[in-house]
């Protein structure tokens, strides 16, 4: 294929992360998140056939490839103004939810909870319980999580053939319909996951758990053994006894695109979601409509060719300019919403969507590390509910189309974007097509928002803000940092190092 030589390219940090901390008397006074890997995905997309985004971009991330695929297909559909049948949206949602369930369970019980098994805590009253539940490759909940998540991604495999990394969403729909066999097989998986979630994770029926709507009611549950002895109950008891509900609020502003396109009302020019999105303004407490035009990225502290201020992704560029010995310190850009640092993820998602329990807990205690993790497990209930709804609707509309073929003549030059709520928060793909080829491709990942460095005005990113003020007892065993960083659901490989009287300590969540 013909290639055009353009200087717009870039990549986004999904893998490696280091965090540089300055400690004064054991308290974090300054934090810098450092993305240590540059791969250049957006550069790879330039000059390619636009559809190739569906194969290339899911490979940005092994844990949320379905979300990338979903964003990419929405961007293409907008650029080409392609209608999408309701059943295709249902199948896309179902698969995104399955990937989300996989993430929420693995992140919580394979990555976050094992920190409570740290030897530091061997005198805590809950330590034996934590070991029995969360110890890697031994704890009961840990092993059950491995088994359950293995099962839940089967749903993606039913429609996409495999998880991770498939390309079954195409402009105009999905490659496979939901027939009776697939609907029933997926339902069996959901039933099994739901039973486990009810019995082992929350200790209550889904209905009772969803009906729980206030902080006080939840604290009451924590006193009763049904919930207190469950996976989430134990996690909450451990986290709260360590004060994680008082730590690491980070930025007060939150952003959500809204979750799951509404199958009946979604169109490339009508963004209607099943859970509403919005921008939660932490200064006013008001929720405002999302305007993607306000999203912009700064590179003042990143290893990219400098430009002034922030740029919207369609005006953005990513020309590597590696300057390790300067005040620029990362391969991550600094995304901002207007001039605001925002956080995204399940807490933002549920607060903005109006989940009563999360709203009440946020009102009672503000943003904090425990609540972020709690919201992730709470989200599972909504995921299960909506997955079931998608299956029911697919069964009722089984003979409706799953794909509408579009003539090649429709593949015009133009611009498009796609926003979805991935497991870690808002994910956006922006592309421009020129002469039938990708002229620009920009991706802003949830981790980019979270792991943002300082912007042009020197304002630190969300993780950087959330760490300041944290007291670190033992730099050789910095388990406090682990709780905080892992509560943000960092991507798989994350390295943290602390600068403490010149001594560096690193660990990986």
């Amino acid at each position: 294929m013909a290639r055009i030589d353009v200087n717009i390219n870039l990549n986004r940090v999904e893998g490696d992360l280091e965090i540089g901390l300055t400690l004064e008397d054991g308290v974090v006074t300054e934090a810098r998140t450092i993305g240590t890997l540059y791969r250049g995905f957006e550069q790879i997309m330039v000059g390619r056939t636009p559809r190739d985004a569906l194969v290339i971009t899911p490979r940005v991330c092994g844990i949320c490839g379905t979300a990338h695929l979903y964003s990419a297909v929405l961007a293409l559909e907008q650029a080409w103004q392609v209608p999408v049948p309701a059943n295709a949206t249902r199948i896309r949602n179902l698969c995104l939810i399955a990937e989300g369930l996989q993430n929420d369970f693995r992140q919580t019980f394979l990555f976050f909870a094992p920190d409570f098994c740290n030897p530091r805590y061997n005198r805590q009253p809950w330590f034996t319980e934590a070991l029995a539940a969360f110890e890697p490759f031994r704890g009961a909940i840990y092993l059950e999580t491995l088994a359950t998540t293995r099962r839940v991604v089967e749903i993606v495999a039913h429609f996409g053939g495999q998880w991770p990394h498939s390309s079954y969403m195409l402009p105009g729909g999905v490659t496979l319909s939901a027939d009776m066999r697939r609907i029933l097989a997926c339902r069996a998986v959901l039933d099994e996951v739901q039973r486990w979630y009810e019995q082992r994770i929350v200790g209550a029926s889904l209905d009772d758990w969803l009906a729980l709507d206030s902080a006080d009611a939840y604290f009451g549950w924590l006193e009763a053994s049904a919930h207190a002895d469950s996976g989430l109950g134990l996690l909450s008891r451990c986290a709260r006894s360590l004060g994680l509900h008082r730590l690491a609020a980070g930025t007060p502003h939150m952003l959500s695109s809204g979750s799951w396109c509404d199958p009946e009302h979604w169109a490339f020019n009508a963004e209607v979601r099943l859970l509403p999105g919005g921008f939660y303004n932490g200064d006013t407490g008001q929720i405002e409509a999302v305007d993607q035009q306000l999203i912009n990225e700064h590179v003042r502290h990143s290893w990219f060719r400098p430009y002034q201020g922030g740029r919207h992704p369609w005006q953005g560029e990513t020309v590597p300019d590696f300057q390790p010995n300067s005040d620029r310190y990362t391969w991550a850009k600094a995304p901002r919403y207007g001039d605001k640092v925002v956080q995204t993820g399940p807490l933002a998602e549920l607060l903005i969507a109006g989940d009563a329990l999360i709203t009440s807990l946020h009102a009672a205690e503000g943003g904090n590390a425990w609540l972020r993790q709690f919201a992730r497990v709470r989200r599972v209930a909504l995921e299960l509910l909506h997955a079931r709804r998608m299956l029911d609707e697919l069964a009722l509309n089984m003979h409706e189309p799953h794909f509408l073929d579009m003539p090649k003549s429709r593949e015009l030059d133009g611009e498009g974007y796609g926003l979805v709520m991935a497991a870690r928060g808002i994910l956006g793909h922006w592309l421009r097509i020129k002469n039938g080829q990708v002229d620009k491709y920009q991706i802003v990942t949830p981790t980019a928002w979270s792991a943002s460095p300082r912007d042009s005005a020197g304002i630190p990113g969300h993780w950087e803000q959330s760490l300041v003020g944290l007291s670190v007892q033992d730099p050789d065993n910095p388990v406090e940092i682990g709780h905080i960083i892992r509560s943000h659901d960092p991507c798989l490989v994350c390295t943290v190092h602390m600068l403490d009287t010149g001594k560096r300590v690193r660990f990986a969540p």
Partner: protein
Amino acid sequence: MNTLFWLQTGACGGESLAILSADSPSLEQLLSTHDIELLWHPSLSHASMREHDAIFERIVSGNQTLDILCVEGSIVTAPRGTGLYDSYQGRARMDIARELAQHADVVVAMGTCAAFGGVHAATPNPSDCIGLQYNREQPGGLFPPEWRSRRGLPVINVSGCPAHPHAMTQTLAWLTTGLPLQLDGLNRPKAFFNTMVHQGCTRNEYHEYDIEEMAPGGPACLFFNLGCQGPMTQAVCNSDLWNGTSSKTRAGVPCFGCTSPAFPRDIDLFSTEKIGDIPLRLPLGVERARYMAYKNLAHHAAPARVKDKEMDS
């Protein structure tokens, strides 16, 4: 006990997640019943990075035996051959991989990135990625073609994007037995690369009778128009189903040939290059003239239920 160290280089984490889907054996079983001791895995290890650094030091100083080194991810060599676009503690991971490999009994490239360079090495290869012992189809990567690990083996290439879960766990399980492991011409364990993706595809009846799909979303064959590489790609996707459930081609997604050194191709991945009506690239080893004659006959022999695409795939 066989010690295993898992190193991530320029990676998406896809192999680390795919391996969690294996069940015969599972990763848990590798650890509990196949005598593997996981010294380190970046997303699963519980110990602190301080412990990671200590393990690394013990390995490279000869105080810790390293039986199996798994590498996941492309070897990033930019900028200018320094590898610093992918660093750990300011040190290129490329150099870390090289040092660990010199102390490993066996080195396994998990996935096409580590084996051949993979998606990150796609044109224009912005971070100058290569594989451990290949640079795309060219022998020689981080290590030259003649390089051998302590057990006398080249880098074992468990390719795929991601690698098939069982190709990973079964290769590891076999390595712990000490029995010889047969490799193919690309140093891939033959057991997982000696069948075509096409073999076992539920669209085979459509392929057999040359009933083609012109657009996605239908039940028929994806080879003639939609870019499917199944008949040219060696992998177990259709004989050992993904997630115990399905495969891309069964789900109507063309095979992109992700176990091949040339993955991903530069051309449009959803279309088939053709000479006249016949694909430019034919099923592995097939002669063009005979194939044309056979397909012509087959097309005319197609029963109505296939011709009319009444059969599910």
